[in-house]
């Protein structure tokens, strides 16, 4: 409210005022859900109807540590990284096949590659968990496989768009100048594609990092990632501070990565704004 009041004092026109009010509402829409997380994370006592915590402290952090937060954080990081490491190069190869080479029936191939976007992840997990058990696939490997397949549509879309917008002339020139295929890959193709590769890897990482239902159903309770820990803490009552600390732990690393990588969609189109 203070912000809007101060801005109104500058006496802008009515249209500008309406625009500013609308934007303040939009900013509140995006930020408001995260405010209670931030406050609960440092609240030792915060009973209704107090608007702000009555006692600040680190009880939430202590509980999150005791619940196995650090190990879950490590598992989630490893899961996200594994999915990114697998889905990014596979998506890059598929994108290159679709854009540069002539794949038979490219429309059908693309439709199959994007099909995991349509299928509910829980349905895929329910369909496969008995089969994976019978084939004696280790639970963690099963989770990584399913999430890599779930991430492939994203990496393929991002890298396909980036490749389609790219100038193929540089490769041709390098080849004319006598570069080996390996030199062309390392010296031309990968550097040109680097921003899109980073964006695609980021999205694939998020698929592994954020997943709940596939890890729950296929992981068989052995792969306790951060979302699983949050899920079990949030479904019980009375541990708001612990839920808040775990939730922030699940939000901050992707945000830091986002700051490093930039907005995937924009960088994928060659860093233009």
């Amino acid at each position, binding site marked *: 409210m203070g912000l809007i009041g101060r801005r109104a004092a500058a006496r802008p026109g009515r249209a500008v005022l309406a625009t500013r009010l609308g934007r303040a509402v939009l900013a509140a829409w995006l930020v408001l859900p995260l405010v209670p997380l931030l406050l609960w994370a440092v609240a030792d006592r915060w009973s209704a*109807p107090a608007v702000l915590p009555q006692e600040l402290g680190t009880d939430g952090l202590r509980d999150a540590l005791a619940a196995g937060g650090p190990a879950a954080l490590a598992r989630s990081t490893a899961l996200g990284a594994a999915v990114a490491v697998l889905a990014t190069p596979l998506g890059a190869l*598929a994108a290159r096949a679709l854009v540069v080479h*002539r794949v*038979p029936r490219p429309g059908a191939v693309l439709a199959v590659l994007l099909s995991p976007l349509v299928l*509910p992840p829980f349905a895929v997990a329910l369909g496969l968990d008995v089969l994976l058990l019978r084939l004696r696939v280790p639970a963690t490997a099963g989770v990584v496989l399913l999430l890599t397949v779930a991430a492939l549509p994203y990496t393929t879309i991002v890298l396909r768009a980036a490749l389609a917008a790219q100038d193929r002339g540089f490769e041709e020139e390098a080849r004319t100048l006598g570069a080996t295929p390996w030199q062309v890959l390392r010296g031309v193709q990968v550097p040109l594609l680097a921003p899109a590769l980073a964006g695609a890897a980021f999205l694939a990482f998020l698929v592994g990092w954020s997943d709940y239902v596939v890890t729950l159903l296929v992981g068989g309770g052995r792969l306790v990632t951060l979302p699983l820990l949050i899920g079990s803490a949030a479904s019980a009552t009375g541990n708001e501070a612990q839920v808040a600390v775990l939730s922030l732990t699940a*939000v901050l690393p992707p945000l830091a990565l986002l700051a490093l990588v930039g907005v995937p969609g924009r960088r994928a189109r060659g860093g233009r704004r």
Partner: protein
Amino acid sequence: MSGPPGARGRRTGLLLVLPALVPVVAVVGAALTSALLAALGLAPLVGEPRLTGAAFTAPADQLASAVPLSLAIAAAATAAAAAVGLALALAAVATARRSRLLGALSAATVPVPHLVGAAAMGLLLADAGFLPRLLGVAPEDWPALVGGRWWVAVVAEYAWKESAFVALVVGGVLASRSRSYGETAAVLGAGRWARFRTVTLPLAAPALGAASAISFVYVLGSYEVAALLGRAAPEPLPVLAVRLSTSIDLAARPQGAAVAVVTAGLALLAVVLALRALRRLAAWG
């Protein structure tokens, strides 16, 4: 030598696409096949396989309430996400006074896991949550937004997260295309509203439609938000399917597979309808 349009180029293309294609076909194919077999009684955990539609008819009452409930949650969340997302995208790419802040906030909301969003919405909207405290409403006077009749917290979580996704997709398209058209229209004397209706909206429509379709299908098949913030009965499709499939009663498991098959069928139908509508939009625009 890259991409000669001949048999050799095709073979290279096929070799390059196979490492991605094989796992997708294996996982999607095996999951659908085994769910269908389980639902039709052909892959029982105990006993003889026998073709039957019992798994679809036994939970018929629950399915009859779960299908419209899931469709309604997905439709409400998508409609809200599309409207707010479009507004966010417009603010982030506006010609005059572009809001970098809203662009950055939308981008920052996209990587928040849905489960975290659900936990946050619970802390915000529950009867002792942050919003009633902020508004000075006593817990007993606050409507049951979490676990209540109208699924408000569930719809709000999806609308919140997906609005940021819509904003990013639509904003990306508008940023690259709309400015020059908008300026031309302004020079030619078009007012704000006319510019919005005749320039911005037609330019944004295909991306808005595609992003909305993706959101709808996502919400339809998403489990954790409704499981955490919803009520015990009636259940939406994913919650129903997971409960039946993980039930200790082995007879219930084929029913869970049947609900999963129904959900996948609905998602597929939604995508086919959306693609048709988008094609018409592209042909028209």
